[in-house]
């Protein structure tokens, strides 16, 4: 199947600064792809190039297997990073306007606006000016406008920023629904949790370069897994587990107990470790297999200094 989006060797300069430096990745159709990276990494520049606002200085961007054109840009829905609406327009008029600019007929666009506003719980505000709406509501209106023309590829630049947790969950749900309906979603974020929960694939960009591309599992696999154990008394867990093939390191004391960190080398290692602890009669006060996070993965990939403000 053709990728909805394919970027190859993208380079973009701002003056003398190389904002994006040879980034290549693709977004397979029907999947959710997350572009992750700290602020200033080059995510928004990459995304603005994808949607045709910026022109690449080098490299190619293909949409649905063809170079960017007015025609295939119509198949994209885009939510910019910095939210912009016509505050004096009504939500219905705003959504209708952007949908018509993407080629929808007026009657279809109006009907679609009504459906989306109802889905977002904003029907009562359809004919009020956007400036009378709360910030969260205005963002919902903008998101609705981005998908009103039922695009095949939905590009969302930091869609969760500025939203409260309830609205963030609403956007997550919308992203899942879009993917479930066969659309491709590409979104950028610097919040790992969203990517971890939503993405089929992730792309990490740091300092304008791609640092990683793959599935979430593949990203997590780069982090060595460990378990944290606390034992009572003077029990030497490292010595006890050595014959069971576990690498165990003392990690100080906690809650009056000796604390240990044990490397888990494979998927069944946690179960085997617990069994080994039982076999050596280890006086366990705490057993906690640590679950790697994307944040851990990215620290591992690009280093602590680069990860910056990522959450």
């Amino acid at each position, binding site marked *: 199947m053709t990728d909805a989006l394919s970027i190859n060797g993208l380079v973009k300069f*701002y003056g003398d600064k190389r904002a994006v430096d040879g980034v290549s990745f693709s977004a397979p159709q029907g999947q959710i792809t997350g572009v992750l990276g700290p602020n200033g990494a080059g995510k928004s520049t990459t995304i603005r190039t994808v949607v045709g606002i910026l022109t690449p200085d080098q490299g190619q961007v293909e949409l649905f297997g063809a170079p960017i054109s007015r025609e295939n840009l119509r198949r994209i829905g*885009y939510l*910019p990073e910095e939210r912009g609406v*016509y505050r*004096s327009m009504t939500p219905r008029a705003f959504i209708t306007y*952007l949908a018509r600019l993407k*080629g929808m007929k007026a009657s279809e666009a109006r009907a679609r606006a009504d459906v989306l506003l109802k889905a977002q719980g904003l029907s009562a505000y359809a004919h009020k000016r956007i400036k009378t709406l709360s910030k969260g509501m205005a963002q919902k209106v903008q998101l609705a406008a981005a998908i009103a023309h039922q695009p095949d590829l939905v590009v969302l630049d930091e869609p969760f920023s500025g939203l409260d947790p309830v609205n963030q969950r609403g956007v997550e749900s919308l992203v899942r629904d879009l993917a479930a309906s066969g659309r491709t979603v590409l979104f950028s974020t610097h919040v790992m949790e969203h990517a971890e929960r939503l993405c089929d694939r992730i792309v990490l960009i740091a300092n304008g370069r791609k640092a990683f591309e793959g599935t979430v599992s593949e990203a997590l696999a780069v982090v060595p897994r460990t378990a944290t154990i606390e034992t009572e008394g003077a029990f030497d867990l490292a010595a006890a587990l050595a014959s069971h093939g576990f690498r165990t390191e003392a990690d100080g004391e906690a809650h009056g107990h000796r604390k240990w960190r044990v490397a888990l080398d494979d998927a069944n290692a946690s179960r085997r470790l617990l069994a080994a602890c039982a076999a050596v009669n280890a006086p366990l006060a705490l057993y906690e297999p640590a679950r790697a996070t994307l944040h851990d993965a990215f620290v591992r990939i690009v280093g602590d200094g680069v990860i910056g403000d990522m959450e």
Partner: protein
Amino acid sequence: MREIYLIARREYLAYVAAWGFWLSLLTAPLLLALFAVGPMLAGQAEPTRALAVIAADPKDAEAIAASFAARSTEIMPRYVVVPAPAATPQEIAPWLTGQKTVAVEGEGRPLFAALFVKRTGETVSVDYWSTNLTDRSAADRAVRAVSERMRADALSARGLDAAETARIEALAPKLEQYDPRGAPGAAVTDRDRAPFVVGMILSFVLWSAVMGVANMLLTGVIEEKSNKILDSLLTSASPLQILIGKLLGVAAVSFTLFGVWGVLGGGALGAASHAGVAGDLAQAALNPALIGAFVVFFLGGYLIYGALFLALGSLCDTLQESQSLLGPVFLVLTLPILFLIPAFQNPQAPLVVGASWFPFFTPFVMMMRAPAGLSPVEFFGPVLLLVATVALVLVGAARVFHAGVVNQASAASLRRRLFARKA
């Protein structure tokens, strides 16, 4: 085309729905009406002013009283000469300061002024007493009345009849002006001059409209840039389409204003079309050729300056920031005003003709020259140059606009965009 139409339509509806549009729509005719009838209303609102004349020679007092009586209904404010309540400046002071009043139109009012006319032989002096130090119209009229009497007395003393004197003073050659391009033997009238007056008025209206509308565009694009809505538009329309859509939308706003003002003004002029100068101006203003020229030159001037303002506005994030960039544009836009009077006095003056070929001045100067009966080359030459310049400015402005709205604008990127050739 569809994108341009939708963007223009949104711009139009946004401006028309704003309070500012309705204020502009109503304010201009109201102000015009106020300027026309304001002074008369102000004069009528002021109560009749009371004057006292104390003259050594009663005939001087009669001449002054007759002068005010003859024009009491024409001139505002109105004056009435009342019997002097006292004979000296010291005695009359309480009436001038309002401590005492005289009866005027059934109510007591202070004296506005007192005139003391003194004669010593042939020497006459007028002392004008009033608490109003700025309005000397009553004094001037009294002096004119006394002067006429003095001249009449002097001529009479030399044996000349007063009526004969007046006839001699009125002697003057009769001036007739002719235009070799007009009908044989037909003298030039105010009706022939009216198109030039209308041309000058329309040229000024054109200039004010371009200035005002370009500012609307500037503030609009800075607002859109600061709230980032342009990023959404750029995925649906090219910078050139956005630029042209915005220009056409605001042009439609202007034509709506002109249309409403035209209907109101045309109605007012039509109602006055039988009345002298107003009738001449009405006939000249309602000339379809002049209206057509106005539309063409408005579009030309508006598109050039509007595109420049949009492009420069796209490089700025705030209005304050825009002021420094717009200085030179405002300077160029101000210069055509200097040609209004010279072009009115001589539409064929070399400087005026030269200015009409400079595309940034063409709309304003040609609007002035249009009624002068220009040859096809003189008219269509500058117009074609204007059209070509509009096209160039639009393309250049679209490039700057693109650079500006995607926040890439810098001196280097501007140069690249302005002089880049399409691959």
